[in-house]
């Protein structure tokens, strides 16, 4: 359970998030909807612990971010353009990331690559990847440790129809295993199709 209580964030005098109050449950897919610059990505960054609140707090499974823990214990993120090591393959990039927590095995890495439609044995370096492949690798990195919180910002960007269908399957899988999925997408129809609940954000505030 993620509880966001009176969360306000001010950056250089501008309120990017205004008094956000939310409760996000397990096994649900939440879709964030709003214009560019409305605060969707900032809210996702806040839940990840990447930005600190000016006021308010975020409690994840009873632990407040910024107190005992700086980041959620189990989170997979894809925020904006994914960035990896140019000189490494998809598998080596994920292997390096997985070595930090050592939760994901080589098998999990291969499974996550296959799930997004990338070949785990592909020897091409990341710098040779197309935009869609980079996006897929970003999604694979987010899901390889089977996180309890999955945050995907515009996961459908640059994906072909097959890629979109794969993302749908991935979201369904994480919902069924009880993860909290937070999703932002510009395609309103797709967002409504994928989400259990839509959260609309305007100028940093949640609107009913």
């Amino acid at each position: 359970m993620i509880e966001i209580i009176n969360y306000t964030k001010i950056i250089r005098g501008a309120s990017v998030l205004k008094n956000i109050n939310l409760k996000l449950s397990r096994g649900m897919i939440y879709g964030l909807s709003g214009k560019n610059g409305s605060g969707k990505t900032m809210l996702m960054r806040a839940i990840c612990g990447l930005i600190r609140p000016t006021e308010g707090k975020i409690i994840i499974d009873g632990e407040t971010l910024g107190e005992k823990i700086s980041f959620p214990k189990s989170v997979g993120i894809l925020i904006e353009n994914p960035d990896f090591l140019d000189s490494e393959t998809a598998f080596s990039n994920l292997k390096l990331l997985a070595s930090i927590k050592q939760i994901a095995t080589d098998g999990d890495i291969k499974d996550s690559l296959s799930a997004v439609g990338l070949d785990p044995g592909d020897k091409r370096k990341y710098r040779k990847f197309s935009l869609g492949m980079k996006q897929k690798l970003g999604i694979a990195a987010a899901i390889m440790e089977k996180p309890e919180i999955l945050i995907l910002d515009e996961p459908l960007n640059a994906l072909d129809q097959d890629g979109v269908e794969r993302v749908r399957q991935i979201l369904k899988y994480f919902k069924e295993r009880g993860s909290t999925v937070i999703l932002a997408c510009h395609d309103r129809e797709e967002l409504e199709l994928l989400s259990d609940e839509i959260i609309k954000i305007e100028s940093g505030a949640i609107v009913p």
Partner: protein
Amino acid sequence: MLKRNNGFFRKTFAIFMSDLSQRSVYIFLLIPLTLLLLYKEKGTVPPAVLSDGISQDFFRLFMGDYRIIPEMSYQPPFAWILLNAYIAFIVGGFPFGSMETAIITKFRSRVSWWISKCFSLLFIIALSHAAIFCTVVLTDISELKAAFFGFDKNSLAAILLPFAVSTACSFVQSLMNLYLKPVFGYVLVVSMQIASTFIHSPILFAGYSQLNRTVLSNPSGITLRLGFTVPAIITLLCMALGAFMSCCIEILGDRSRK
């Protein structure tokens, strides 16, 4: 406790591999740069206090300010400036590189992430100086035996002092990069390094690695104890300050600070 330490080493190693992967080419390029500078600096007479050719070559590279007395005319020490500026370039976007958003969220706290980044930076600087050292050794292969068995205190100091000061400069640069764009951190550190070549001031601590200013060249110069102590204190101070500052920074994107 052991398990916790293993976790820290594992995370530090992963960060180091990520940082190294982004910088390995630039570290490798230190070899031809060192060769070029060694060739250029061949005409300089080494001091008698260093007995072996390897430390004498090191002395040539990191001699810095040529003036023994302030009344002598200033000549920019190109080798010293280039090597230091290049190492500052290698440090570059520390602490925010590729995958940093994904990496940092795998840590439990921002402080542990910063400490791991510090160790990673230390290894990167050590590797950079190792590349310079190996190049010097290879150009003076006949002195290889001395390199491993016969180094005296002065020779070791000539090799390790530039590393110690380089580490301190890099930590200051990384600390600045927590808030500033990398280009500003780079310009500030290199400006301090260049300023230290013609201004004798303890505040411009980069000057401690100019071996011509130390007791190795001048009996009334900077003592080795001071030369090593000041960078060590600055490095530790930066680690502590960075641990504090890392708790307050906003992480708004990979490579966003370039």
